[in-house]
């Protein structure tokens, strides 16, 4: 990795910190500091703020409105936001479907969709998983049958994040039932306002509904909303998954929660001594710090390999596995160290930006994240699938 690239990434980190300190509206900063649940309006505001900084699609090529960021800059950007505890950069438009559209879409599709993705004028969701097709995505059964100038879609998607807010769903559908599993799949863009689309929220253990079931019943989708060629959806999906699995914010999340744990352990006194002076907790924090050091360095090594094209194919999986496992464990320790406050959860107050009944005022956010992050080792390719990938792609097993 060249010095110049490194310097650019460092400058970008500084810009992100300045943005957080001076540009981000106080109410949003306060909510994000407390890790509260954000509304659609908050998220849209957030994504537009990023766009105004020129960051929302900076990783896209210049001809589509991006800046052609290197993998290192993109990593530094997401990592720094996560370290600051900012809301996440909702990836469905800018990170997932946007690149699929500019890489495989028609000229008309690019003009129709890319500007709205960049500015979050339109909100996107991802229609991949189905009740019978999670890790084994090729087992999906939602069908799209061609009838004249449109497709008729029938089936059910599940775990669809923010489907309740989405204007559009990018969806994997089966256009040919007789082919072998992967080759019968196509990539379709579905207007969520179409008749026959029904969104059913799924309440998760944090008391909130981030994810949904999406039922599709005789939904008519214009044929012009097919991306690329019929039957090539699997290729586009793999391209998208590769983007999904880039290092992203995981390292920053782990850093943030470890930092929060240290702050809590320094500020909390039990029997006259700071928690951080208790040998067992101090030892655990030391072990987390050590694992974080290995994770952070491995992430930089991976991003450098992505930048110079020397990947072994296991980099993103390694970071996802190690990062999410560390994130979960540190969070668990943080919650335990909150004692009584760590089980006093007022989910309703959290949504309305109220204060928790006990503990520091970000307690609710900590608990929300603790519940939510149990899914971190499941979504985006479970830890087991990641290990399968490395075993096959890197070790040849």
């Amino acid at each position, binding site marked *: 990795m060249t010095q110049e690239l490194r310097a650019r990434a460092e400058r970008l980190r500084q810009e992100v*910190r300045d943005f957080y300190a001076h540009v981000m509206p106080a109410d949003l900063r306060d909510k994000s500091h407390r890790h509260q649940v954000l509304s659609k309006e908050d998220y849209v505001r957030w994504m537009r703020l990023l766009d105004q900084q020129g960051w929302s699609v900076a990783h896209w090529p210049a001809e589509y409105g991006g800046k052609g960021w290197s993998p290192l800059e993109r990593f530094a950007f997401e990592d720094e936001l996560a*370290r*600051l505890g900012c809301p996440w950069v909702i990836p469905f438009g800018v990170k997932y479907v946007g690149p699929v559209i500019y890489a495989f879409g028609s000229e008309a599709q690019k003009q129709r969709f890319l500007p709205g993705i960049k500015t979050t004028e339109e909100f996107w969701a991802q229609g991949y998983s189905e009740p019978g097709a999670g890790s084994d995505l090729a087992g999906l059964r939602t069908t799209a049958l061609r009838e004249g100038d449109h497709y008729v879609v029938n089936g059910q998607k599940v775990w669809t994040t923010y489907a309740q807010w989405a204007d559009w769903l990018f969806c994997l559908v089966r256009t040919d039932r007789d082919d072998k599993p992967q080759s019968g799949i196509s990539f379709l863009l579905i207007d969520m306002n179409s008749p026959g689309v029904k969104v059913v929220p799924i309440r998760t253990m944090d008391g909130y509904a981030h994810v949904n079931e999406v039922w599709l019943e005789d939904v008519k989708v214009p044929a012009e909303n097919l991306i690329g060629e019929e039957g090539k959806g699997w290729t586009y999906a793999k391209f998208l998954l590769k983007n999904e699995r880039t290092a992203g914010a995981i390292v920053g999340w782990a850093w943030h929660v470890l*930092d929060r744990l*240290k*702050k809590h352990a320094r500020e909390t006194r039990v029997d006259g001594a700071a928690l*951080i002076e208790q040998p067992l907790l*101090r*030892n655990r*924090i*030391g072990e987390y*710090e*050590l*694992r974080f*050091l*290995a*994770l952070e*360095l*491995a992430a*930089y*090594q*991976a991003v450098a390999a992505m930048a110079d094209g020397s990947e072994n194919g*296991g*980099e993103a999986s*390694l970071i996802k*596995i*190690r990062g999410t496992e560390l994130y979960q464990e540190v969070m668990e320790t943080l919650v335990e160290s909150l004692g009584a406050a760590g089980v006093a959860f007022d989910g309703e107050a959290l949504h309305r930006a109220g204060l928790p009944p006990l503990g520091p005022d970000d307690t609710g956010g900590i608990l929300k994240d603790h519940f939510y992050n149990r899914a971190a080792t499941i979504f985006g390719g479970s830890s*087991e699938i990641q*290990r*399968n990938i*490395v*075993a096959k792609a*890197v*070790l*040849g*097993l």
Partner: protein
Amino acid sequence: MSTDLETIAMLRDSAARYAEDNYSFHQRWSVLEQPSGYSPQAWSDFAEFGFLALRLPEEEGGLDGDAVAVGAIMEIVGARLLMEPLLASAVVGTGLLLRQGSAEQKATLLPALADGSLVLALADEDAPGQACVFDGRHLTGGKLGVLHGDVAGKLLVSARDTAGETVVVLVDAEAPGVSRKAYRLVDGRGAALIAFEGVQAECLQPESGHSAAESLAAIRDEATVALCAESLGIVRNLVTITTEYLKVRKQFGRTIGSNQALQHRMVDCFMLQEEIRALVAAAQQALAGPAEERTRIVSGARAYIAHAARKVCNEAIQMHGGLGVTDELDVSHYFRRLMVNAALFGSRDAHFARFTDATLAVASPH
């Protein structure tokens, strides 16, 4: 100082090629039978290739090699389990002399170090109740676990002077009053317990610069980073060997590598290898950086790698089944080398404590 990439690639290639041709696992058996615990032939070959002058400044005919250059050689040392005193003499002994020796001391000793005629070992850990004392002319005390102390021609010994200050003194290993009790380490390399009774010694005294305590701290860190690179070489080979074994060993009519339980464990080993690789590079860089960060990263790398390398080796043994514990399989020799390395230049726990203290001493940047 930073060695250019071309020189490093050249070092790596020549060491790898030499080991490939002359130091296969089978050729190594005869080295293990040598009374010295290493191959004098290989040692003089290393001198010829310039490996022993790796650390020397260019004006002394050396390569002025930095930690990355040293690491390139140490990875081969680990991968091939070389037995020669490269770490003890060419890295640690030479490095300490370069930092702490006077111009005259360097002029006398460096040529002999470069041509291999002198093996210089560091005796650092006091024997219980025998702290080494230097009265200005004579050294008294005892040292433990001196790596290659059995074959060293001269010794660098850490001691206290009469004012209680740390000094490093140079002793002829054959001088009157030196008694050495030689023994073998579990990996076959030689070591010694050494007692000094009023032995004539000279202090290493640089014309300017670091105190002896600073130089010792720096050289311990340098040695630690070199050991990390050696462990990387070991782990890389273990991962390769074991992955290959999973592909050929059949039980119940199929390769054992087709079992997901073993695939996932092998992936965990691979991930450890990748983390070790990243940590080694960071530790090499940190050696040239500011003191606190040097301490944190070097000890952190060492603490992580000590566990990670042992974990990979334990898994390699387990996956090789009964073969894994036999003397005739290289896996068991890697195991023994890692055991020895774990006992050199500070334990895992000591490095972990040092890492934790350094890390928690720093306030959060945000």
